[in-house]
């Protein structure tokens, strides 16, 4: 837990979907498990300025694991994107009349990941995971206003959003096969952004800029509860500067 707190300082959460328990829920002999999940993410990106990205993600995941030791998984999902105050002007002659937030609806993303687990005893164990996501489509939002009295409209495009995460999880299996887990993780995420026209006073221009995550580390904690008939409920939270959370219901074949 100390490690979790240490790594939680100064970071913001970024990932596409949950990390999940370090130990696979697939059958020991090997088998699939699938899940559907929802995740709310917040992250802070920066170039010269800082931007808060907020995303609601819904995804479907298929995993294959075996021996209670390892698992590989893939996800396909959709996510929206909100960038707070992306269109605020620092020029008195430029007035933005549209919403100052960048908002775009559902776009597809994909995630691939793998995890390994090493049991210490019947209750405790430690595992590690590596997970990466990529957004296949670009996000686009229109900004409108007046520049020195002349009306303007422009599109801001955020494209090639991706992230990669690596973490270590400590797990405790308590009665009813409930798994509690927590650990630190590091990550990197990046996106390219550019405006369709140069507008004086706006942070973005026609030149493509690269936005990167402000911090590189965070902490996560979660619980995996076996439900009836092969279903599992997974709830997870990630905290750094802001709190992100998600839940997934999985089915073990």
């Amino acid at each position, binding site marked *: 837990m100390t490690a979790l707190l240490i790594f939680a300082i100064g970071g913001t959460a970024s990932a596409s979907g949950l990390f999940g328990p370090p130990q696979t829920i697939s059958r020991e002999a090997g088998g699939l498990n699938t*899940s559907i999940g929802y995740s709310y993410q917040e992250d802070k990106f920066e170039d010269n300025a800082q931007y808060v990205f907020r995303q609601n993600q819904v995804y479907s995941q*298929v995993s294959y694991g075996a021996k209670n030791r390892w698992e590989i998984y893939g996800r396909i999902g959709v996510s929206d994107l909100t960038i707070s105050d992306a269109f605020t002007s620092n020029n008195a002659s430029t007035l933005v009349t549209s919403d100052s937030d960048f908002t775009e609806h559902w776009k597809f993303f994909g995630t691939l990941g793998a995890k390994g687990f090493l049991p210490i005893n019947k209750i405790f164990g430690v595992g590690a995971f590596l997970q990466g996501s990529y957004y296949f489509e670009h996000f686009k939002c229109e900004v409108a206003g007046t520049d020195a009295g002349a009306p303007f409209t422009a599109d801001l495009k955020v494209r090639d959003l991706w992230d990669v995460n690596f973490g270590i999880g400590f797990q405790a299996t308590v009665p009813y096969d409930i798994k509690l887990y927590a650990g630190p993780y590091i990550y990197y995420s990046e996106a390219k952004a550019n405006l369709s026209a140069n507008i004086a006073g706006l942070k973005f221009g026609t030149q493509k800029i690269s936005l990167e995550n402000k911090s590189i580390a965070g902490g996560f904690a979660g619980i995996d509860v076996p439900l009836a*008939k*092969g279903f599992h409920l997974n709830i997870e939270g990630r905290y750094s500067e802001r709190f992100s959370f998600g839940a997934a*219901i999985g089915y073990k*074949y």
Partner: protein
Amino acid sequence: MKSYLLSIFLFIFLAVGPVHGAGTDAAQANTETSPSIVVVGETVETTTEAPDKTADPFQEEYENGEYTDNGANAASKEEKLEIADPLEPFNRAMFHFNDKLYFWMLKPVAQGYKEVVPEPVRISFKNFFSNLGFPIRFLSCLFQADFSGAATEAGRFGVNTIWGIGGLMDPAASKELDLQKQDTDLGLTLASYGVGHGFYIVWPLFGPSSPRDTIDLAGRYFLNPLSYITPWYYPLGTKALDVVNATSLSIGDYESLKEAAIDPYVALRDAYIQYRKKQIKRKNNKAGAAGVQLEGNLTKSGAY
């Protein structure tokens, strides 16, 4: 121009599927007389139904003076409710047309497809297309006041779509969940309201049918979500994949039926009618068990 028309025709043929679809059903009816693995519509199921045996089938055949194949004979003896066949010359022509299309086109394509696509993938495709058949099964259950069947279908669709990766897998049929696919359609729904078969008709490409079951064919088109994809060749392409995929999983069924029969046309017709009758009986038994009295309606109207 000719090659263009030929290619369109080939595409449509693959998209809608020739005699094989109905032949599959018919083949099932023929093979239901013995425990075996048979194909029911789009799914492969294990039939555990006891064979319809007489006390001494050989003696009975001898007494009746019949020496036809046992399967067809059993079918003809059981199927006392014959179907009118006023269009027999047309139907026979369509039967041969479909037969040739199956052997010359669909079967070779399906065999090639089978060679290159592994069976688990083909079964996943079958599950996917079966999952898309949810609307017709769900509505049929509702129209038959089979609310438990409708609930089962809704549950199956939800579970398989969400946790079965869009229906590619069938977790709903697992031991734990036990949500089995409902064997019903609009033809059976009409039968449950007392609508009879009418006469026998063999549609080109679609195979054995009747006026009642032709309504089911139309319903299948309108209630299939794939029918509404644009442009027009997408639904045709997916239907072609469905037919070729299903055929690759049941190559040999139609051939067995044909080989076992003296007159394949009559064998297919009898098997088709018998199969539909059995489906109606099964639904009727289920409805009877649920306290719904459909027996009287069906018998009076001759809906068998």
